[in-house]
């Protein structure tokens, strides 16, 4: 059933759009940071809530098994499409983030660094995506995940009003810094109508 959410054409189109949008975003980021931003090719998948939980788990595994997820969640909405961007920072050194953002590092700064980075990264990507789709997305305030936000529990032990979601996953690294972020754009099936319409329009 879940494979029905996006047709193959729609999936390819979304991947292509994401690719262009992220490329443009990376260019702007590079100018802002004065550093080279390396992006992976965006992966588009149709995932169930427990698939998403597993994806998050696998992102965490690479570095820090026992630590809670470090990241920021930000809602976006516009023109019949809505979703949530999750920006995860596992495998990032705060000192490197501080250097990139031109702060004098101090452990109390961690929250500031994560918020600034997600403002910039999340903002650039969603803005890029909106431009490619010729629409406007309103962004909600970013929410810093803290250990009490048990994402795994939110995804797997709750009665959600959706069973599958389109997920775009992109990995960012920044050359010469130990900064590694994964951006997941999650658009659940009940909020995807506007996106499908736009994709169909682009395919024709």
């Amino acid at each position, binding site marked *: 059933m879940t494979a029905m959410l996006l047709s193959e054409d729609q999936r390819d189109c979304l991947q292509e759009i994401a690719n262009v949008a992220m490329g443009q975003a990376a260019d*702007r*980021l590079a*100018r*802002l940071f004065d550093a080279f931003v390396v992006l992976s090719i965006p992966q588009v998948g149709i995932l169930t809530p427990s698939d998403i939980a597993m994806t998050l788990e696998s992102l965490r595994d690479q570095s820090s098994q026992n630590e809670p997820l470090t990241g920021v969640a930000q809602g976006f909405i516009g023109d019949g499409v809505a979703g949530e961007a999750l920006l995860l920072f596992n495998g990032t050194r705060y000192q490197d983030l501080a250097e990139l*953002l031109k702060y004098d590092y101090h452990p109390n700064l961690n*929250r*500031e660094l994560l*918020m*600034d980075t997600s*403002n*910039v990264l999340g*903002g*650039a990507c*969603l*803005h890029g995506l909106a431009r490619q789709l010729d629409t406007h997305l309103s*962004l909600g*305030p*970013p929410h*810093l995940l803290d250990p009490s936000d048990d994402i795994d529990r939110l995804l797997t032990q709750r009665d959600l009003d959706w069973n599958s979601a389109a997920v775009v996953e992109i990995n960012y690294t920044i050359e010469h810094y130990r900064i590694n972020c994964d951006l997941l754009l999650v658009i659940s099936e009940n909020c995807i109508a506007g996106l499908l319409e736009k994709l169909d329009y682009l395919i024709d």
Partner: protein
Amino acid sequence: MPDRELNSLLKDVHWLMDILQNIDVGLVVMDRDYNISLWNQFMQNHSGKFPEGVLERNIFELFPDLPQDWFRRKCEPVFLLQSATFTTWEQRPYLFHFPHYRPITGTARFMYQNCTILPLLDTQGNVSHICLIVYDVTDTAVNKRAQIEANQQLQALSRIDHLTQLYNRGYWEQNLHQEFLRFDRYEIPATLILFDIDHFKKVNDTHGHTVGDEVIRQVSQCLREQLRETDIAGRYGGEEFGVILTATTQEGGLDFAERLRRTVEQKAIQTDRQQIHVTISLGVCELAADIKTEQEWLQLADQGLYYCKEHGRNQSRCYP
């Protein structure tokens, strides 16, 4: 344009302006050099500065207390990336220092603020201005803080033994477990002391439970005064106590035990009618590779304690 259409357009603009003026968030529009070009009623009321005094003037000159570097960091990406940025009270409680104004239900000294900074595009699609939106989130912030505080108190309550102000048995045992695992991984020495008050039953029988409790409290206080930052002390049973001395060998442990024993021995415990003296017996055991479980570690320290009991009390004994 026909008059009717023009009138209707003017009415729309008039309404929009009314809404911007009266909406209960702060709105400030600024140009590339941070000169103010819009200042709504909310900002006027909370800052006490009127539009005539702020328009076309630089925000940092008008508000010298603004965290200029911080605020610029949040604004520059908006100009460059054309996307909004956000700040929360958790990063910095406020941008503008606005005193809190509700005399009765106001619980904070100032207004906690979240901010959103939006890009405003000119006709060429460049960001010529930014719009700063200031939200009053005082109630949210105060509630969240109260919640965090309550959780911390609950956590402390669930860990602390009321009579002695030492860790209770459950939490102390968790620590013992952690320390045991840490030794397994890093082989940093750790020494355990188990001790109890000699002839405590007699104290209770002779002087009553209130005095018994006072004795436990005073002995705990001697212990607390001697603890280092890294030592972990708990009430293990009625008159029985456990201390985990981190990064401490058997020698250091015995030294700690003897010092505590002498302090307690010399302490005069004042009751209503008289002064009483008590002594303690202590078993000391340094963790070693051949100790396989934390239970075994406890048993070994307990055997040291048992030896003292058998051999006259008021002494310390290392075991094995």
